[in-house]
């Protein structure tokens, strides 16, 4: 068995256990204003063929010119994946005919990619950690889109995407379960979003994966793989792998063999189906694109980008655990989305980080989840939430009142301190006022006073009554202390 085999990941078949082996080719759209080799815009949407230059439409005599911003993004991504940056790389032509491929070839990188080997650390909810090797990252052009539903006989072509820069990030076959594969793509997406090199928007197709799946008996060599093309959600990736692994196991257990082929995932049925066999595979006739010179980078260019990298999720997570004393789970929840961690760090800045984390995770995320909102849509800003945390810290309000304040800010907005002031929600710390309330409650309930002396737990009832009498504003610590002494429980 290899080091990555885990008993818990094995799939039970009719004839024994099977291990699934997964490698991923993730296509991530580079965040850039212009396309990889033309000045046309890259934004999603727009009328069909609104963002198409003469180069993108492969008009006669048009030539590609590399967009340096895309190169910088690829290097940035490579550095974020702790990968080697190849100072010299080559663009090749991948030749095939398709109506949404105007040049009749895709400009890609074949033998000499811009980024070499790296790694991604994936932590699963179970606590399992997988280090996934990155084989390479290369830059390539996206194709256009064929529209088959616009006309009864003809297809239309939309070239808005044609020529948009993609990074193809190829993993080693290091994944052993659909959970790992999903977690890997999530983590990769997080890293890309931290780096600002891909927006990670899977619905808009900014991130999609080709999934290579094979099965084997634990300890055996690799089985024959099938490649599932263009899976565009993390959930679908999981479904596709589950289905495909089962399909392959069944075939082998029935005495069959797996044909190497390219398959498609059907989101409606949750199944994969054959797209083309190995025999039908294209001969892409790769060769270096003579329109482009080899891409030569200087070490200074790379170093400058390295110097501008943000703190990445792994480092943030480690820092949150070590410096803030957060649990690994809380740290994971916070670092998984760049917007969340930015929000959290705003709240935590100059405040008790653990308390900030509690408020962000439990109150804010809880409420956002309940209402189906993203962090960017939060009605409460980090400054407002920070204000609430400050009020607790200063003893102005209790944690309980703070939740009310949170609720008011959520629905009505406003400055938490002002709300507390105006609505008289300030915590009563004046012991004379609290003492008065305690005395009144005790005087009105002599039987309970007697009970409490026998059963100290009854003191809790008194706390509730006093809090009720003070409209919840009494400092719970002060109430507790007074009751204990007056009831003689000390």
């Amino acid at each position, binding site marked *: 068995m290899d080091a990555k085999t885990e008993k818990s990941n094995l799939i039970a078949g009719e004839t024994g256990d099977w291990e699934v082996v997964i490698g991923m080719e993730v296509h991530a759209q580079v965040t850039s204003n212009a396309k990889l080799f033309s000045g046309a815009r890259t934004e999603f949407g727009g009328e069909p063929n609104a963002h198409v230059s003469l180069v993108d439409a492969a*008009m006669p005599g048009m030539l*590609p010119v590399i967009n340096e911003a895309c190169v910088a993004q690829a290097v940035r991504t490579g550095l974020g994946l702790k990968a080697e940056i190849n100072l010299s790389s080559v663009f090749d*032509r991948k*030749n095939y005919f398709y109506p949404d491929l105007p040049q009749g070839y895709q400009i890609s990188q074949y033998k000499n990619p811009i980024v070499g080997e790296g790694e991604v650390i994936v932590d699963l909810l179970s606590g399992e950690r997988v280090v996934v090797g990155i084989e390479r990252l290369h830059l390539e052009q996206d194709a256009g889109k064929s529209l088959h539903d616009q006309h009864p006989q003809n297809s239309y072509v939309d070239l808005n995407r044609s020529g948009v820069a993609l990074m193809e990030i190829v993993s080693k076959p290091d994944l052993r379960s659909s959970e790992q594969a999903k977690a890997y793509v999530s983590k990769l997406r997080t890293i890309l979003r931290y780096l600002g090199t891909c927006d990670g928007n899977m619905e808009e197709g900014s991130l999609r994966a080709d999934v290579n799946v094979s099965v084997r008996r634990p300890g055996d060599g690799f089985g024959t793989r099938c490649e599932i093309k263009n899976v565009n959600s993390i959930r679908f990736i999981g479904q596709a792998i589950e289905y495909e692994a089962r399909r392959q196991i069944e075939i082998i257990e029935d005495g069959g063999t797996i044909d190497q082929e390219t398959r498609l995932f059907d989101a409606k049925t949750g199944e994969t189906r054959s797209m083309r066999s190995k025999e039908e595979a294209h001969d892409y*006739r790769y*060769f270096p694109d*003579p329109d482009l*010179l080899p891409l030569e980078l200087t070490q200074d260019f790379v170093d400058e980008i390295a110097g501008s990298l943000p703190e990445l999720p792994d480092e943030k997570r480690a820092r949150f655990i070590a410096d803030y004393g957060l649990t690994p789970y809380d740290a994971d929840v916070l670092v998984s989305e760049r917007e969340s961690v930015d929000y959290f760090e705003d709240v935590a800045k100059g405040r008790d980080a653990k308390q900030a984390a509690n408020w962000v995770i439990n109150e804010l995320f809880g409420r956002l989840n309940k209402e189906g909102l993203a962090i960017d849509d939060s009605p409460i800003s980090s400054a407002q939430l920070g204000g609430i945390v400050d009020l607790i810290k200063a003893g102005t309000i209790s944690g309980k009142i703070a939740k009310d304040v949170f609720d008011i800010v959520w629905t009505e907005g406003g400055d938490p301190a002002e709300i507390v002031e105006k609505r008289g929600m300030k915590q009563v710390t004046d012991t004379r006022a609290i003492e008065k309330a305690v005395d009144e409650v005790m005087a009105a309930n002599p039987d309970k006073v007697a009970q409490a002396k026998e059963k100290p737990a009854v003191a809790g009832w008194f706390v509730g009554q006093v809090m009720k009498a003070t409209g919840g504003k009494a400092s719970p610590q002060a109430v507790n202390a007074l009751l204990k002494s007056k009831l003689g429980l000390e």
Partner: protein
Amino acid sequence: MTDLTDLTIADAREGLAAKSFSAVELAEAHLAAIRCANRALNAYVLETPERALDMAKQSDARLAKGEAGTLEGIPLGIKDLFCTKDVRTTACSHILDRFTPPYESTVTANLWDAGAVMLGKLNNDEFAMGSSNETSFYGEVVNPWRRAGSDAPLVPGGSSGGSSAAVAARLCLGATATDTGGSIRQPAAFTGTVGVKPTYGRCSRWGIVAFASSLDQAGPIARTVRDAAILLGVMASHDPKDATSADLPVPDFEAAVGQGVKGLTIGIPKEYRVEGMAPEIEALWQQGIAWLTEAGATVKDISLPHTKYALPSYYIVAPAEASSNLARYDGVRYGLREPGKDVLSMYENTRESGFGAEVKRRVLIGTYVLSAGYYDAYYLKAQKVRTLIKRDFDQAFENVDAILTPTTPAPAFAAGEKSGDPLEMYLNDIFTVTVNMAGLPGISVPAGLSSEGTPLGLQVIGRPFDEETLFRVGHALEEAAGPMAKPQDWWSKS
């Protein structure tokens, strides 16, 4: 008044400046000549008289205001490989039927910015694939030169056969051309004109229909070395839209003309003495050596040992790139579309009907040599040979300033003579392809007439980006050879 179509560009420039004639008169004289000649020669595939007169009028206005550009009012023909804005551009292929680009190639834009006047689009071999201008969808071009005592049509060379024929027949003062394996120099040699293939990267390829991207270069065909220098000076530029364009200043090429060859060392490569070369070509070469020696140059024997591999390697590299470059002609977005029952059959029908036999042959060769299992044996090997060829030249240029060779192994041949045998046709490029493979500049200068009375050319090869030495040596040869004879006008019909 002298015949305006017989002027050199340098003369016309002076005449226009001196107001001896107007740009409109100059354009009209050429348009009239084209009208009389084109049926016989088929040099132009598209005449643009209205545009020419309009441009000439604007030139006259600028001349009057003293704002004349370098080529103000000079009427030129443009090879149909150059995309010209709002003017049909087809690369003489059926597949680009009626294609009218909404953009102007960088080279032609440079010409118009300098005040040049466009007379029309010139015929060429389809997609510049050919050495005789017989593969054009618009029919073959006829060489204005004939063998003494014969009416048999000769080819004007190719692929820039329309350019060479038009310049030789006085249907323009100069023309743009392109050279992938000899397509400027060989037609120039066949028509008694001067053709320059500049260093790869000297002229922008942007807006020129691509044949083989790593070999294609634009250059001029003109009647004198000076005219060629004037034209190249305007055509050349660094262009950020072409990643292979050289970011170097463009020297004053015209200033090099007439500087003489004293102190220059000229290399004579022994490998260019090929089997079967006509004795008169050998004699011409010796004559060229004698002229340069007399003019003060030192001549030195050199060796370019990998020369014999150049042609076979070229016919791997060029078709490989072409097979990919021509993939965009699929009937989807522009040009010809032949419907089919599905996309695949539409592709097949369009390309079957749109491409001629020579283009198909090269696409097939190119596809084959790039295929899985053959790539290393053909394409990769050819690229290695290319490196060796380049190294041969690098080493030679340590000892010599330029290299003198014949341009072609034989003078212009008869129409139909070689079109049935591609290999024999390809052999025409034997002296010229090395220059493209090494990315060097080369010039062909008319140096005499064959025993049959047809032109012969000598080629000078220079160091990268040292076109100036080519113009010096080329001009010395031109001076020594004396005024080039003019083809006798048999083609004009009013």
